[in-house]
């Protein structure tokens, strides 16, 4: 009996047991709830950080596959204990603070960087009954947490007292600030479809049909904006080995660099998770989530892993683009597309919502297909003109040379 209660609501079961224990010790009720909230936050963060160690191995193994290598394969079975060796290495490295660095800001920046990622897990609904907090402004909260990450990049670069770090940060922040706009716009599309900004309600709205079917273009746009927000290839402009080396964290050594690195990996996985929550149905998988919250968590993690894998797939197969191409791509293409999508989805949602669900799904899908077709037509026309221009210049140069 007790076991089934635990199985269907584990977090509340433990919380109730802890409440009984603590009030039994004679603590005030507000103190008890404060302690339980703190314990919950610490447990969630610790689990995510341990999972982060595993992500290092996943990332290295997957990149090795894409580059036709073996990857880590010496420490433990399939090299799975390699990250622990890496952590020991990071910890025993010399901790250098560069000359003229702003000490407080320099040491605060990696903490803020990792914090901005961990903050996101507060609103991640892992299962119907397992979530940090069900904010009714969840989508905006994600953007707000991201803006703290932007701040940490500027702080790290400025406090390092290094010109290359600063140049890297300028480029990175330019990407972050501009791709925030299509990201907000595409996050509003699941908000419109679910009628709420709360992550839990967005997931529950996908019980019958995942939003990737209702808004496939929005899912794609969100993924592109998320990759840019992560600063991963093809948008890893802060990295240029021959000119500005590794960007804003060039001066960081040891575990401080480790915090940036861990933050980046966990950020990628987290955005994979949010992609799953906003568009791939979150913890829904053909009713399997009803077996128990722990199964739902497993489903969500599998979907987040899928999103993470897609991000890695793009990262290791698409080449880096120039900064002017990146900005033009965002401002002249992705942002207008995101806004058109937002307006069209709102309109079609209002028109088709009263119809039966079959017509609704077909209508939304058809809208996206038609819009996608128009976008591809415009893009191919643009590409043709650019090619003709380039060929014209080439033939003119060739004839002048002759």
């Amino acid at each position, binding site marked *: 009996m007790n076991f089934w209660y635990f199985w269907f609501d584990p977090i509340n079961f433990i919380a109730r047991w802890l409440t009984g224990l603590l009030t039994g010790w004679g603590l005030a009720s*507000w103190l008890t709830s404060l302690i339980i909230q703190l314990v919950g936050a610490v447990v969630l963060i610790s689990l995510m950080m341990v999972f982060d160690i595993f992500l290092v191995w996943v990332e290295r193994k997957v990149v090795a596959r894409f580059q036709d290598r073996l990857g880590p394969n010496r420490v433990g079975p399939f090299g799975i204990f390699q990250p622990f060796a890496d952590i020991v290495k990071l910890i025993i490295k010399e901790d250098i603070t560069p000359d003229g660095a702003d000490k407080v800001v320099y040491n605060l920046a990696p903490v803020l960087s990792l914090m901005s990622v961990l903050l996101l897990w507060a609103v991640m609904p892992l299962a119907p009954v397992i979530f940090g907090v069900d904010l*009714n*402004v969840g989508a*905006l909260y994600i953007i707000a947490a991201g*803006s703290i990450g932007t701040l940490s990049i500027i702080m790290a670069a*400025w406090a390092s007292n290094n010109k290359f770090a600063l140049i890297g940060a300028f480029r990175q922040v330019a990407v972050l*600030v501009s791709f925030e706009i299509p990201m907000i716009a595409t996050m509003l599309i699941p908000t419109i479809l679910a009628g709420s900004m709360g992550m839990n309600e967005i997931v529950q709205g996908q019980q019958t049909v995942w939003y990737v079917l209702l808004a496939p273009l929005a899912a794609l746009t969100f993924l592109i904006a998320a990759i840019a927000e992560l600063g991963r290839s093809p948008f890893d402009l802060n990295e240029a080995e021959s000119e500005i080396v590794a960007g804003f964290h060039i001066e960081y050594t040891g575990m401080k660099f480790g915090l940036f690195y861990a933050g980046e990996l966990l950020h990628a996985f987290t955005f994979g998770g949010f992609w799953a929550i906003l568009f791939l149905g979150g913890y829904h998988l053909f009713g399997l989530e009803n077996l128990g919250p722990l199964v739902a968590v497993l489903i969500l993690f599998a979907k987040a892993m899928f999103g993470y894998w897609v991000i890695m797939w793009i990262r290791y197969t698409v080449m880096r683009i120039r900064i002017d191409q990146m900005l033009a791509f965002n401002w002249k293409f992705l942002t207008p597309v995101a806004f058109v999508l937002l307006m069209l989805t709102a309109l079609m949602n209002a028109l088709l919502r009263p119809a039966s669900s079959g017509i609704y799904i077909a209508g939304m899908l058809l809208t996206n297909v038609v819009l996608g077709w128009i976008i591809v037509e415009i893009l191919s026309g643009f590409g043709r003109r650019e090619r003709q221009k380039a060929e014209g210049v080439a033939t003119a140069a060739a004839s002048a040379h002759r």
Partner: protein
Amino acid sequence: MTVLQIFFLIVALVILGSSLMVVTTRNLIHAALWLIVTLFGVAVLYAVLNAGFLAVVQVVVYIGAIAILFIFAVMLTRKELRDRGPQLNRGWWLNVIIALLTFGGLFWMLQSWNGFSKTAAAFPSSYDALGQLGNALISPNAFVLPFEVASVLLLAALVGAVYIAFNPPSGDSRK
């Protein structure tokens, strides 16, 4: 004192202290970073007042956009990030008096208002403050006109900025 009051006092002290640092620190970047602490404190106050939407928007708009813009502008326009001149001008005592008078006047006015010492009634559990705000912003009986006017104003500013920054194609005589 309740827990909430102690919390409010701590947040208020952080806001006041950091805003004091904004105007007293000589390093412009530090001033911008202290300003971020101040703005974050205000966001915390909004959250305490059950205005979650305002709190999140405060962080997105002020910290994510405006403070970053400040830091960029300071870094791109100033070679010397340290301010050397005197920090007070001759009329500082007059400003202190005006500030104190304003504070005293506000304090006196609020003291005489009978809502000052009342505690606000709690929201009913099903009250959707965010939905109410959203409806008010697009309802013709409420704030649709100021909302739209503000959007048109921002759009005009955006178009103006693009016009100023627009680089005419090479060969243009306006160069």
